[in-house]
Protein backbone atom coordinates (compact mmCIF):
# COMPACT_ATOMS: atom_id res chain seq x y z
CA UNK A 1 0.00 0.00 0.00
CA UNK A 2 1.48 3.31 -1.05
CA UNK A 3 -0.02 6.72 -1.33
CA UNK A 4 2.36 8.63 -3.50
CA UNK A 5 0.20 10.27 -6.06
CA UNK A 6 2.05 9.22 -9.18
CA UNK A 7 2.75 5.51 -9.33
CA UNK A 8 3.40 5.22 -13.03
CA UNK A 9 6.55 3.31 -13.86
CA UNK A 10 7.89 1.01 -16.57
CA UNK A 11 6.81 -2.60 -16.14
CA UNK A 12 10.44 -3.74 -15.98
CA UNK A 13 11.01 -1.53 -12.96
CA UNK A 14 7.75 -2.52 -11.25
CA UNK A 15 8.57 -6.22 -11.54
CA UNK A 16 12.15 -5.67 -10.39
CA UNK A 17 10.98 -3.59 -7.41
CA UNK A 18 8.14 -5.71 -6.14
CA UNK A 19 8.60 -9.29 -7.33
CA UNK A 20 11.54 -10.75 -5.44
CA UNK A 21 12.93 -14.26 -5.62
CA UNK A 22 10.93 -16.41 -3.21
CA UNK A 23 8.02 -13.98 -3.10
CA UNK A 24 4.43 -15.13 -2.55
CA UNK A 25 2.45 -13.79 -5.48
CA UNK A 26 -0.96 -13.92 -7.08
CA UNK A 27 -2.05 -12.88 -10.55
CA UNK A 28 -5.46 -11.72 -11.72
CA UNK A 29 -7.76 -13.01 -14.40
CA UNK A 30 -9.30 -16.40 -15.06
CA UNK A 31 -8.10 -19.15 -17.46
CA UNK A 32 -8.01 -17.30 -20.80
CA UNK A 33 -9.17 -13.87 -19.68
CA UNK A 34 -7.33 -10.85 -18.30
CA UNK A 35 -4.22 -12.67 -17.12
CA UNK A 36 -1.46 -10.05 -16.66
CA UNK A 37 0.61 -11.67 -19.41
CA UNK A 38 3.03 -8.80 -20.05
CA UNK A 39 3.98 -8.94 -16.38
CA UNK A 40 4.22 -12.73 -16.49
CA UNK A 41 6.59 -12.58 -19.45
CA UNK A 42 8.63 -9.89 -17.73
CA UNK A 43 8.97 -12.07 -14.61
CA UNK A 44 10.18 -14.87 -16.87
CA UNK A 45 12.63 -12.60 -18.68
CA UNK A 46 13.98 -11.34 -15.35
CA UNK A 47 14.41 -15.00 -14.33
CA UNK A 48 12.75 -14.46 -10.96
CA UNK A 49 12.20 -17.86 -9.41
CA UNK A 50 11.25 -19.81 -6.31
CA UNK A 51 7.92 -18.01 -6.41
CA UNK A 52 4.95 -19.21 -4.37
CA UNK A 53 1.86 -18.74 -6.51
CA UNK A 54 -1.70 -18.48 -5.17
CA UNK A 55 -4.17 -19.14 -7.96
CA UNK A 56 -7.85 -19.91 -8.28
CA UNK A 57 -8.32 -20.59 -12.00
CA UNK A 58 -5.41 -18.86 -13.64
CA UNK A 59 -4.68 -20.47 -16.95
CA UNK A 60 -2.19 -19.01 -19.38
CA UNK A 61 -0.32 -16.89 -16.84
CA UNK A 62 0.11 -19.80 -14.50
CA UNK A 63 1.26 -22.19 -17.20
CA UNK A 64 3.86 -19.84 -18.66
CA UNK A 65 5.28 -19.22 -15.18
CA UNK A 66 5.43 -22.92 -14.41
CA UNK A 67 6.83 -23.72 -17.83
CA UNK A 68 9.62 -21.22 -17.27
CA UNK A 69 10.47 -22.71 -13.89
CA UNK A 70 9.55 -19.60 -11.90
CA UNK A 71 7.22 -21.41 -9.51
CA UNK A 72 8.33 -23.68 -6.70
CA UNK A 73 5.09 -23.80 -4.68
CA UNK A 74 1.53 -23.56 -5.82
CA UNK A 75 -1.86 -23.29 -4.11
CA UNK A 76 -4.52 -23.77 -6.71
CA UNK A 77 -8.11 -24.63 -7.56
CA UNK A 78 -7.94 -25.19 -11.28
CA UNK A 79 -5.40 -25.06 -14.07
CA UNK A 80 -6.98 -24.99 -17.48
CA UNK A 81 -6.53 -23.00 -20.62
CA UNK A 82 -9.90 -23.22 -22.29
CA UNK A 83 -10.28 -25.34 -25.36
CA UNK A 84 -6.56 -25.16 -26.14
CA UNK A 85 -5.61 -27.09 -23.01
CA UNK A 86 -8.39 -28.34 -20.71
CA UNK A 87 -5.56 -29.07 -18.28
CA UNK A 88 -2.60 -26.70 -18.36
CA UNK A 89 0.25 -28.64 -19.87
CA UNK A 90 3.30 -27.35 -17.99
CA UNK A 91 1.29 -27.53 -14.77
CA UNK A 92 0.33 -31.17 -15.31
CA UNK A 93 3.89 -32.12 -16.16
CA UNK A 94 5.32 -30.31 -13.14
CA UNK A 95 2.87 -32.13 -10.86
CA UNK A 96 3.45 -35.49 -12.52
CA UNK A 97 7.23 -35.03 -12.35
CA UNK A 98 7.24 -33.72 -8.78
CA UNK A 99 9.01 -30.53 -9.73
CA UNK A 100 6.65 -28.28 -7.77
CA UNK A 101 4.96 -28.50 -4.40
CA UNK A 102 1.24 -28.00 -4.68
CA UNK A 103 -1.91 -27.93 -2.62
CA UNK A 104 -5.43 -28.17 -4.08
CA UNK A 105 -8.43 -26.12 -3.01
CA UNK A 106 -11.70 -25.31 -4.79
CA UNK A 107 -12.36 -22.06 -6.64
CA UNK A 108 -14.64 -20.79 -3.94
CA UNK A 109 -12.16 -21.69 -1.24
CA UNK A 110 -9.37 -19.82 -3.00
CA UNK A 111 -11.63 -16.80 -3.56
CA UNK A 112 -12.64 -16.85 0.10
CA UNK A 113 -9.00 -17.08 1.11
CA UNK A 114 -8.18 -13.93 -0.84
CA UNK A 115 -11.28 -12.31 0.62
CA UNK A 116 -10.19 -13.23 4.14
CA UNK A 117 -6.81 -11.67 3.40
CA UNK A 118 -8.50 -8.54 2.12
CA UNK A 119 -10.72 -8.39 5.20
CA UNK A 120 -7.82 -8.91 7.59
CA UNK A 121 -9.39 -11.93 9.27
CA UNK A 122 -7.54 -15.25 9.67
CA UNK A 123 -10.19 -17.34 7.89
CA UNK A 124 -13.60 -17.44 6.29
CA UNK A 125 -16.17 -20.22 6.58
CA UNK A 126 -17.76 -22.28 3.85
CA UNK A 127 -19.93 -25.35 3.56
CA UNK A 128 -17.90 -26.61 0.62
CA UNK A 129 -15.73 -29.68 0.50
CA UNK A 130 -16.95 -31.91 3.35
CA UNK A 131 -16.13 -35.51 2.52
CA UNK A 132 -13.79 -34.59 -0.31
CA UNK A 133 -10.08 -35.26 -0.60
CA UNK A 134 -9.53 -31.50 -0.68
CA UNK A 135 -10.00 -31.71 3.08
CA UNK A 136 -7.84 -34.77 3.63
CA UNK A 137 -4.89 -34.48 1.23
CA UNK A 138 -2.47 -31.75 2.24
CA UNK A 139 0.35 -30.84 -0.12
CA UNK A 140 2.73 -29.09 2.25
CA UNK A 141 4.47 -31.11 4.93
CA UNK A 142 4.06 -30.59 8.66
CA UNK A 143 7.67 -29.48 9.01
CA UNK A 144 7.27 -26.93 6.23
CA UNK A 145 4.19 -25.59 7.95
CA UNK A 146 6.13 -25.31 11.15
CA UNK A 147 9.32 -23.82 9.80
CA UNK A 148 8.06 -21.41 7.17
CA UNK A 149 6.12 -18.59 8.80
CA UNK A 150 4.58 -17.72 5.43
CA UNK A 151 2.86 -21.13 5.23
CA UNK A 152 -0.25 -21.48 7.40
CA UNK A 153 -0.20 -24.19 10.09
CA UNK A 154 -3.20 -26.03 8.63
CA UNK A 155 -4.51 -26.34 5.11
CA UNK A 156 -8.00 -25.83 6.51
CA UNK A 157 -10.03 -26.64 9.61
CA UNK A 158 -13.44 -28.18 10.26
CA UNK A 159 -15.27 -26.80 13.29
CA UNK A 160 -18.71 -27.17 14.80
CA UNK A 161 -21.19 -24.35 14.30
CA UNK A 162 -21.25 -22.44 17.59
CA UNK A 163 -24.72 -21.17 16.73
CA UNK A 164 -26.44 -24.57 16.95
CA UNK A 165 -27.81 -25.44 13.56
CA UNK A 166 -28.29 -21.78 12.57
CA UNK A 167 -28.39 -21.54 8.78
CA UNK A 168 -28.88 -25.31 8.69
CA UNK A 169 -25.21 -26.07 9.22
CA UNK A 170 -23.90 -28.39 11.91
CA UNK A 171 -20.27 -27.67 11.02
CA UNK A 172 -18.25 -25.48 8.71
CA UNK A 173 -14.97 -25.61 6.84
CA UNK A 174 -12.66 -22.70 7.65
CA UNK A 175 -10.17 -21.71 4.97
CA UNK A 176 -7.15 -19.61 5.93
CA UNK A 177 -6.47 -16.10 4.67
CA UNK A 178 -3.95 -15.37 1.92
CA UNK A 179 -1.91 -12.18 1.99
CA UNK A 180 0.43 -12.27 -1.01
CA UNK A 181 3.57 -10.18 -1.07
CA UNK A 182 2.47 -8.91 -4.43
CA UNK A 183 -0.56 -9.24 -6.69
CA UNK A 184 -0.43 -8.35 -10.36
CA UNK A 185 -3.57 -7.60 -12.34
CA UNK A 186 -4.36 -6.26 -15.76
CA UNK A 187 -7.27 -3.82 -16.14
CA UNK A 188 -8.93 -1.80 -18.84
CA UNK A 189 -8.34 1.62 -17.26
CA UNK A 190 -6.22 3.06 -14.49
CA UNK A 191 -5.05 6.52 -13.57
CA UNK A 192 -1.58 7.52 -12.38
CA UNK A 193 -2.62 7.24 -8.72
CA UNK A 194 -3.69 3.66 -9.26
CA UNK A 195 -7.46 3.82 -9.21
CA UNK A 196 -8.72 1.07 -11.53
CA UNK A 197 -11.81 0.38 -13.55
CA UNK A 198 -12.37 -3.18 -14.69
CA UNK A 199 -14.93 -3.79 -17.41
CA UNK A 200 -16.83 -7.08 -17.37
CA UNK A 201 -16.32 -9.79 -14.79
CA UNK A 202 -13.78 -9.01 -12.08
CA UNK A 203 -13.18 -12.69 -11.14
CA UNK A 204 -11.29 -12.49 -7.82
CA UNK A 205 -9.06 -9.58 -8.78
CA UNK A 206 -10.52 -7.16 -6.26
CA UNK A 207 -9.99 -9.49 -3.30
CA UNK A 208 -6.52 -10.43 -4.55
CA UNK A 209 -5.56 -6.76 -4.73
CA UNK A 210 -6.93 -5.86 -1.32
CA UNK A 211 -5.26 -8.87 0.30
CA UNK A 212 -1.84 -8.01 -1.05
CA UNK A 213 1.04 -6.09 0.47
CA UNK A 214 2.02 -4.70 -2.92
CA UNK A 215 -0.01 -4.40 -6.09
CA UNK A 216 1.15 -3.94 -9.65
CA UNK A 217 -1.49 -2.83 -12.10
CA UNK A 218 -0.95 -3.05 -15.84
CA UNK A 219 -3.56 -1.25 -17.90
CA UNK A 220 -4.83 -0.96 -21.43
CA UNK A 221 -5.46 2.73 -21.01
CA UNK A 222 -3.72 5.10 -18.64
CA UNK A 223 -6.31 7.83 -18.21
CA UNK A 224 -6.59 11.14 -16.47
CA UNK A 225 -7.94 11.03 -12.94
CA UNK A 226 -10.95 13.06 -14.08
CA UNK A 227 -12.02 10.34 -16.48
CA UNK A 228 -12.32 7.80 -13.67
CA UNK A 229 -13.85 10.21 -11.18
CA UNK A 230 -16.82 10.85 -13.42
CA UNK A 231 -18.21 7.46 -12.53
CA UNK A 232 -16.87 6.17 -9.22
CA UNK A 233 -19.41 3.33 -9.39
CA UNK A 234 -17.32 1.72 -12.12
CA UNK A 235 -14.04 1.88 -10.20
CA UNK A 236 -13.60 -1.30 -8.22
CA UNK A 237 -10.12 -0.53 -6.91
CA UNK A 238 -9.33 2.78 -5.23
CA UNK A 239 -5.71 3.93 -5.47
CA UNK A 240 -4.90 3.27 -1.81
CA UNK A 241 -4.31 -0.40 -2.61
CA UNK A 242 -1.94 0.10 -5.54
CA UNK A 243 1.87 0.29 -5.59
CA UNK A 244 2.69 0.64 -9.29
CA UNK A 245 0.81 1.47 -12.47
CA UNK A 246 2.25 0.34 -15.78
CA UNK A 247 0.77 1.34 -19.08
CA UNK A 248 0.89 -1.80 -21.23
CA UNK A 249 -1.56 -1.87 -24.13
CA UNK A 250 -2.56 -5.44 -24.90
CA UNK A 251 -0.90 -6.39 -21.66
CA UNK A 252 -3.14 -9.44 -21.25
CA UNK A 253 -2.48 -10.82 -24.73
CA UNK A 254 -2.83 -13.70 -25.63
CA UNK A 255 -5.69 -13.79 -23.09
CA UNK A 256 -8.81 -11.66 -23.58
CA UNK A 257 -9.75 -8.22 -22.30
CA UNK A 258 -13.47 -7.52 -22.52
CA UNK A 259 -14.13 -4.48 -24.68
CA UNK A 260 -10.60 -4.46 -26.08
CA UNK A 261 -9.60 -7.79 -27.58
CA UNK A 262 -10.46 -11.45 -27.56
CA UNK A 263 -8.23 -14.35 -26.60
CA UNK A 264 -5.97 -15.47 -29.41
CA UNK A 265 -7.00 -19.09 -29.74
CA UNK A 266 -4.31 -19.72 -32.34
CA UNK A 267 -1.59 -18.51 -30.01
CA UNK A 268 -3.03 -20.52 -27.14
CA UNK A 269 -2.96 -23.61 -29.32
CA UNK A 270 0.56 -22.86 -30.49
CA UNK A 271 1.62 -22.60 -26.86
CA UNK A 272 -0.18 -25.82 -25.94
CA UNK A 273 1.49 -27.72 -28.80
CA UNK A 274 4.92 -26.33 -27.99
CA UNK A 275 4.52 -27.07 -24.27
CA UNK A 276 4.15 -30.76 -25.01
CA UNK A 277 7.83 -31.33 -25.78
CA UNK A 278 10.88 -29.84 -24.15
CA UNK A 279 12.62 -28.88 -27.37
CA UNK A 280 9.65 -27.23 -28.98
CA UNK A 281 8.92 -25.39 -25.75
CA UNK A 282 12.47 -24.05 -25.54
CA UNK A 283 12.17 -22.88 -29.11
CA UNK A 284 8.86 -21.23 -28.32
CA UNK A 285 10.29 -19.47 -25.28
CA UNK A 286 13.34 -18.33 -27.19
CA UNK A 287 11.18 -16.86 -29.92
CA UNK A 288 8.35 -15.32 -27.92
CA UNK A 289 9.74 -14.55 -24.48
CA UNK A 290 13.49 -14.42 -24.16
CA UNK A 291 13.99 -13.28 -27.73
CA UNK A 292 11.97 -10.09 -27.30
CA UNK A 293 12.88 -7.25 -25.01
CA UNK A 294 9.39 -6.34 -23.91
CA UNK A 295 5.69 -6.79 -24.58
CA UNK A 296 5.69 -4.25 -27.36
CA UNK A 297 8.37 -6.17 -29.20
CA UNK A 298 6.43 -9.40 -28.56
CA UNK A 299 3.31 -7.87 -30.09
CA UNK A 300 5.34 -6.84 -33.13
CA UNK A 301 6.20 -10.45 -33.86
CA UNK A 302 2.55 -11.39 -33.45
CA UNK A 303 1.76 -8.82 -36.07
CA UNK A 304 -0.99 -6.30 -36.67
CA UNK A 305 -2.91 -8.69 -38.89
CA UNK A 306 -3.38 -11.18 -36.09
CA UNK A 307 -4.18 -8.40 -33.62
CA UNK A 308 -6.85 -7.05 -35.95
CA UNK A 309 -8.48 -10.47 -36.01
CA UNK A 310 -8.96 -10.51 -32.24
CA UNK A 311 -9.86 -6.86 -31.79
CA UNK A 312 -13.14 -6.51 -29.96
CA UNK A 313 -16.29 -5.39 -31.64
CA UNK A 314 -17.50 -2.28 -29.77
CA UNK A 315 -21.06 -3.57 -29.44
CA UNK A 316 -20.33 -6.95 -27.88
CA UNK A 317 -16.90 -6.48 -26.34
CA UNK A 318 -15.42 -9.49 -28.14
CA UNK A 319 -14.35 -10.34 -31.68
CA UNK A 320 -17.54 -11.34 -33.48
CA UNK A 321 -17.34 -14.42 -35.71
CA UNK A 322 -13.66 -14.78 -34.99
CA UNK A 323 -12.25 -18.11 -36.11
CA UNK A 324 -11.79 -20.06 -32.88
CA UNK A 325 -10.01 -23.39 -32.78
Amino acid at each position, binding site marked *: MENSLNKVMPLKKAIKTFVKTGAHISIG*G*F*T*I*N*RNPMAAVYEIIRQKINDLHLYA*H*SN*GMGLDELIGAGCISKLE*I*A*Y*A*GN*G*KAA*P*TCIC*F*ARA*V*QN*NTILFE*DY*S*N*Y*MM*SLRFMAGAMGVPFLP*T*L*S*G*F*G*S*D*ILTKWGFSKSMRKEDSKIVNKKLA*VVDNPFGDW*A*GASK*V*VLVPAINPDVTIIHVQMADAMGTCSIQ*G*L*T*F*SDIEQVKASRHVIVTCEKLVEKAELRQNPDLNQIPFIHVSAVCHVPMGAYPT*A*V*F*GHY*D*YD*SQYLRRFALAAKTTDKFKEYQADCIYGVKDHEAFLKIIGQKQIDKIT*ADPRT*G*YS*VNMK*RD
Partner: protein
Amino acid sequence: MNKDHPYTPREIMTIMAAREIKNGDIVFSGTGISMLAAMAAKNINAPESVIFFETGAIDSLLEELPFAVSDPRIMYWAAANSQLTDAFTTMQNRITGDKVIAILGAAQIDIHGNLNTTCIGDYFSPDIRFAGSGGGCDVASFVPRCIAFMQHEKRKFVKKLDYLTSPGQLEGEKSRQAAGLRSGGVSVVVTNLGVMRFDKDSGRMYLDKFYPDIAPEKILENTAFNMDISKATQADPPTIKELKILREECDPQRLILD
Protein backbone atom coordinates in the same frame (compact mmCIF):
# COMPACT_ATOMS: atom_id res chain seq x y z
CA MET B 1 -32.89 -45.36 -32.43
CA ASN B 2 -35.87 -44.24 -34.37
CA LYS B 3 -34.96 -44.63 -38.01
CA ASP B 4 -37.25 -41.78 -38.96
CA HIS B 5 -35.21 -39.28 -37.03
CA PRO B 6 -31.69 -40.46 -36.32
CA TYR B 7 -29.59 -38.69 -33.74
CA THR B 8 -26.03 -38.88 -32.48
CA PRO B 9 -24.98 -40.00 -28.97
CA ARG B 10 -24.08 -36.38 -28.25
CA GLU B 11 -27.54 -35.25 -29.27
CA ILE B 12 -29.39 -37.75 -27.09
CA MET B 13 -27.09 -36.90 -24.15
CA THR B 14 -27.83 -33.22 -24.58
CA ILE B 15 -31.57 -33.78 -24.76
CA MET B 16 -31.59 -36.12 -21.74
CA ALA B 17 -29.74 -33.51 -19.68
CA ALA B 18 -31.95 -30.69 -20.96
CA ARG B 19 -35.04 -32.55 -19.79
CA GLU B 20 -33.67 -32.48 -16.23
CA ILE B 21 -33.82 -28.70 -16.20
CA LYS B 22 -37.06 -27.16 -15.00
CA ASN B 23 -38.59 -23.79 -15.58
CA GLY B 24 -37.13 -21.34 -13.08
CA ASP B 25 -33.97 -23.35 -12.56
CA ILE B 26 -30.68 -21.52 -12.41
CA VAL B 27 -28.28 -23.59 -14.46
CA PHE B 28 -24.66 -23.64 -13.33
CA SER B 29 -23.01 -24.20 -16.64
CA GLY B 30 -19.55 -25.01 -17.83
CA THR B 31 -18.73 -24.96 -21.54
CA GLY B 32 -19.10 -27.51 -24.31
CA ILE B 33 -21.93 -30.01 -24.04
CA SER B 34 -23.05 -28.67 -20.64
CA MET B 35 -23.60 -25.24 -22.17
CA LEU B 36 -25.50 -26.81 -25.03
CA ALA B 37 -27.77 -28.73 -22.65
CA ALA B 38 -28.53 -25.50 -20.83
CA MET B 39 -29.35 -23.75 -24.09
CA ALA B 40 -31.48 -26.68 -25.24
CA ALA B 41 -33.50 -26.60 -22.02
CA LYS B 42 -34.06 -22.87 -22.35
CA ASN B 43 -35.22 -23.27 -25.93
CA ILE B 44 -37.30 -26.42 -25.48
CA ASN B 45 -38.72 -27.12 -22.05
CA ALA B 46 -37.61 -24.46 -19.55
CA PRO B 47 -37.85 -21.03 -21.15
CA GLU B 48 -37.53 -19.29 -17.79
CA SER B 49 -34.39 -21.14 -16.76
CA VAL B 50 -31.35 -18.95 -16.30
CA ILE B 51 -27.81 -19.73 -17.42
CA PHE B 52 -25.23 -18.87 -14.85
CA PHE B 53 -21.43 -19.06 -14.63
CA GLU B 54 -19.20 -19.47 -11.61
CA THR B 55 -17.18 -16.50 -12.83
CA GLY B 56 -20.13 -14.25 -11.96
CA ALA B 57 -22.17 -13.69 -15.12
CA ILE B 58 -25.86 -14.45 -15.08
CA ASP B 59 -28.38 -14.71 -17.90
CA SER B 60 -25.85 -13.65 -20.56
CA LEU B 61 -27.16 -13.31 -24.10
CA LEU B 62 -24.65 -15.74 -25.68
CA GLU B 63 -24.87 -14.66 -29.28
CA GLU B 64 -21.87 -16.94 -29.73
CA LEU B 65 -21.03 -20.09 -27.79
CA PRO B 66 -18.40 -19.39 -25.13
CA PHE B 67 -15.32 -21.64 -25.03
CA ALA B 68 -14.55 -21.05 -21.34
CA VAL B 69 -16.44 -19.74 -18.32
CA SER B 70 -14.22 -16.67 -18.54
CA ASP B 71 -14.94 -16.14 -22.23
CA PRO B 72 -15.79 -12.48 -22.93
CA ARG B 73 -18.88 -13.80 -24.73
CA ILE B 74 -20.56 -14.40 -21.36
CA MET B 75 -20.04 -10.79 -20.27
CA TYR B 76 -22.24 -9.37 -22.99
CA TRP B 77 -25.84 -8.44 -22.20
CA ALA B 78 -25.81 -10.26 -18.85
CA ALA B 79 -28.22 -9.31 -16.10
CA ALA B 80 -25.17 -8.63 -13.97
CA ASN B 81 -21.42 -9.08 -14.23
CA SER B 82 -19.97 -9.77 -10.83
CA GLN B 83 -17.25 -12.01 -9.45
CA LEU B 84 -16.49 -15.49 -8.14
CA THR B 85 -17.47 -14.83 -4.55
CA ASP B 86 -20.87 -13.52 -5.68
CA ALA B 87 -21.49 -16.52 -7.91
CA PHE B 88 -20.74 -19.01 -5.15
CA THR B 89 -22.84 -16.97 -2.73
CA THR B 90 -25.78 -17.54 -5.06
CA MET B 91 -25.19 -21.28 -4.83
CA GLN B 92 -24.25 -21.63 -1.18
CA ASN B 93 -27.27 -19.83 0.24
CA ARG B 94 -30.52 -21.74 0.47
CA ILE B 95 -32.68 -19.07 -1.16
CA THR B 96 -31.19 -18.99 -4.64
CA GLY B 97 -29.05 -22.10 -4.13
CA ASP B 98 -32.03 -24.42 -4.02
CA LYS B 99 -32.93 -23.33 -7.55
CA VAL B 100 -29.52 -24.16 -8.95
CA ILE B 101 -28.89 -27.24 -11.03
CA ALA B 102 -25.29 -27.89 -11.99
CA ILE B 103 -23.88 -29.69 -14.98
CA LEU B 104 -20.50 -31.26 -14.37
CA GLY B 105 -18.06 -33.52 -16.13
CA ALA B 106 -15.42 -35.77 -14.56
CA ALA B 107 -12.60 -38.20 -15.24
CA GLN B 108 -13.99 -40.74 -12.77
CA ILE B 109 -17.28 -41.39 -11.01
CA ASP B 110 -18.07 -44.02 -8.37
CA ILE B 111 -21.27 -45.84 -7.44
CA HIS B 112 -22.26 -43.01 -5.07
CA GLY B 113 -21.83 -40.31 -7.68
CA ASN B 114 -18.66 -38.86 -6.24
CA LEU B 115 -16.48 -37.25 -8.90
CA ASN B 116 -12.77 -37.07 -9.60
CA THR B 117 -11.48 -34.19 -11.71
CA THR B 118 -8.06 -34.03 -10.09
CA CYS B 119 -5.80 -36.93 -11.01
CA ILE B 120 -5.27 -40.54 -12.04
CA GLY B 121 -2.91 -42.35 -9.70
CA ASP B 122 -1.50 -41.12 -6.44
CA TYR B 123 -2.42 -37.49 -5.70
CA PHE B 124 1.13 -36.50 -4.81
CA SER B 125 2.73 -38.16 -7.79
CA PRO B 126 -0.01 -38.84 -10.30
CA ASP B 127 0.12 -40.64 -13.61
CA ILE B 128 -2.14 -38.01 -15.07
CA ARG B 129 -2.95 -34.71 -13.49
CA PHE B 130 -6.18 -32.92 -14.46
CA ALA B 131 -7.21 -29.32 -13.98
CA GLY B 132 -8.59 -29.80 -10.46
CA SER B 133 -11.79 -28.87 -8.72
CA GLY B 134 -12.45 -25.40 -10.06
CA GLY B 135 -15.94 -24.74 -8.79
CA GLY B 136 -16.92 -28.40 -9.04
CA CYS B 137 -16.43 -29.34 -5.40
CA ASP B 138 -18.25 -26.17 -4.36
CA VAL B 139 -21.34 -26.62 -6.44
CA ALA B 140 -21.54 -30.36 -5.66
CA SER B 141 -21.41 -29.40 -1.98
CA PHE B 142 -24.04 -26.69 -2.21
CA VAL B 143 -26.83 -27.42 -4.62
CA PRO B 144 -29.61 -29.99 -4.56
CA ARG B 145 -29.22 -31.28 -8.10
CA CYS B 146 -26.21 -31.93 -10.30
CA ILE B 147 -26.08 -33.62 -13.66
CA ALA B 148 -22.85 -35.48 -14.40
CA PHE B 149 -21.97 -35.83 -18.06
CA MET B 150 -19.71 -38.84 -18.69
CA GLN B 151 -18.50 -41.10 -21.43
CA HIS B 152 -19.60 -44.52 -20.28
CA GLU B 153 -16.34 -46.49 -19.90
CA LYS B 154 -15.15 -48.95 -17.29
CA ARG B 155 -12.08 -46.83 -16.46
CA LYS B 156 -14.36 -43.91 -15.72
CA PHE B 157 -17.11 -45.71 -13.78
CA VAL B 158 -14.75 -47.00 -11.12
CA LYS B 159 -14.96 -48.90 -7.85
CA LYS B 160 -12.78 -46.39 -6.06
CA LEU B 161 -11.87 -42.87 -7.12
CA ASP B 162 -8.20 -41.97 -7.19
CA TYR B 163 -9.19 -38.64 -5.64
CA LEU B 164 -12.60 -37.48 -4.45
CA THR B 165 -12.86 -33.96 -5.83
CA SER B 166 -16.60 -33.29 -5.77
CA PRO B 167 -18.91 -34.97 -3.27
CA GLY B 168 -21.83 -37.02 -4.49
CA GLN B 169 -23.50 -39.29 -1.94
CA LEU B 170 -20.06 -40.04 -0.36
CA GLU B 171 -20.47 -43.57 1.04
CA GLY B 172 -24.25 -43.47 0.66
CA GLU B 173 -26.89 -43.83 3.38
CA LYS B 174 -26.68 -40.74 5.59
CA SER B 175 -22.96 -40.18 5.02
CA ARG B 176 -23.41 -36.95 3.14
CA GLN B 177 -25.32 -35.41 6.00
CA ALA B 178 -22.94 -36.88 8.58
CA ALA B 179 -19.99 -35.31 6.82
CA GLY B 180 -21.60 -31.87 7.13
CA LEU B 181 -23.10 -31.57 3.66
CA ARG B 182 -26.62 -30.65 2.79
CA SER B 183 -28.53 -33.11 0.67
CA GLY B 184 -27.67 -32.70 -2.97
CA GLY B 185 -24.64 -33.53 -5.03
CA VAL B 186 -24.73 -35.53 -8.24
CA SER B 187 -28.32 -36.68 -8.69
CA VAL B 188 -28.29 -37.88 -12.26
CA VAL B 189 -25.61 -39.19 -14.61
CA VAL B 190 -26.07 -38.81 -18.33
CA THR B 191 -23.79 -40.85 -20.57
CA ASN B 192 -23.64 -41.95 -24.16
CA LEU B 193 -25.44 -45.15 -23.12
CA GLY B 194 -28.09 -44.20 -20.60
CA VAL B 195 -29.25 -42.23 -17.62
CA MET B 196 -28.38 -43.23 -14.04
CA ARG B 197 -29.92 -42.01 -10.80
CA PHE B 198 -29.32 -42.72 -7.12
CA ASP B 199 -31.37 -44.74 -4.70
CA LYS B 200 -32.83 -42.40 -2.13
CA ASP B 201 -31.91 -44.57 0.84
CA SER B 202 -28.69 -46.28 -0.12
CA GLY B 203 -27.36 -43.47 -2.29
CA ARG B 204 -26.18 -46.07 -4.82
CA MET B 205 -26.30 -45.49 -8.53
CA TYR B 206 -28.86 -47.44 -10.53
CA LEU B 207 -29.70 -47.51 -14.19
CA ASP B 208 -32.86 -45.53 -14.77
CA LYS B 209 -32.99 -45.33 -18.56
CA PHE B 210 -31.16 -47.03 -21.35
CA TYR B 211 -31.20 -45.51 -24.78
CA PRO B 212 -33.00 -47.20 -27.65
CA ASP B 213 -30.79 -49.96 -29.12
CA ILE B 214 -28.57 -50.01 -26.00
CA ALA B 215 -28.92 -53.15 -23.87
CA PRO B 216 -28.76 -52.58 -20.10
CA GLU B 217 -26.18 -55.36 -19.97
CA LYS B 218 -23.90 -53.40 -22.26
CA ILE B 219 -24.06 -50.53 -19.81
CA LEU B 220 -23.14 -52.88 -17.00
CA GLU B 221 -20.18 -54.12 -19.01
CA ASN B 222 -18.91 -50.59 -19.22
CA THR B 223 -19.24 -50.03 -15.50
CA ALA B 224 -16.60 -51.26 -13.04
CA PHE B 225 -18.97 -51.44 -10.10
CA ASN B 226 -22.08 -53.50 -9.62
CA MET B 227 -25.00 -51.32 -10.59
CA ASP B 228 -28.68 -52.21 -10.25
CA ILE B 229 -30.20 -52.35 -13.72
CA SER B 230 -33.43 -54.04 -12.68
CA LYS B 231 -35.55 -50.90 -12.65
CA ALA B 232 -34.34 -49.60 -15.98
CA THR B 233 -36.70 -48.75 -18.77
CA GLN B 234 -36.04 -47.44 -22.23
CA ALA B 235 -35.61 -43.70 -22.54
CA ASP B 236 -38.03 -41.77 -24.68
CA PRO B 237 -35.80 -40.86 -27.57
CA PRO B 238 -35.37 -37.21 -28.53
CA THR B 239 -38.43 -36.01 -30.38
CA ILE B 240 -38.35 -34.50 -33.82
CA LYS B 241 -39.13 -31.17 -32.25
CA GLU B 242 -36.37 -31.42 -29.68
CA LEU B 243 -33.80 -32.33 -32.30
CA LYS B 244 -34.96 -29.58 -34.61
CA ILE B 245 -34.58 -26.92 -31.94
CA LEU B 246 -31.26 -28.33 -30.78
CA ARG B 247 -29.82 -28.40 -34.27
CA GLU B 248 -31.33 -25.28 -35.73
CA GLU B 249 -31.49 -22.92 -32.79
CA CYS B 250 -28.93 -24.05 -30.24
CA ASP B 251 -25.94 -25.03 -32.33
CA PRO B 252 -26.59 -24.32 -35.99
CA GLN B 253 -22.83 -24.22 -36.68
CA ARG B 254 -22.45 -27.59 -34.94
CA LEU B 255 -19.58 -26.24 -32.83
CA ILE B 256 -20.38 -28.69 -30.07
CA LEU B 257 -22.67 -31.20 -31.74
CA ASP B 258 -19.87 -32.39 -33.99
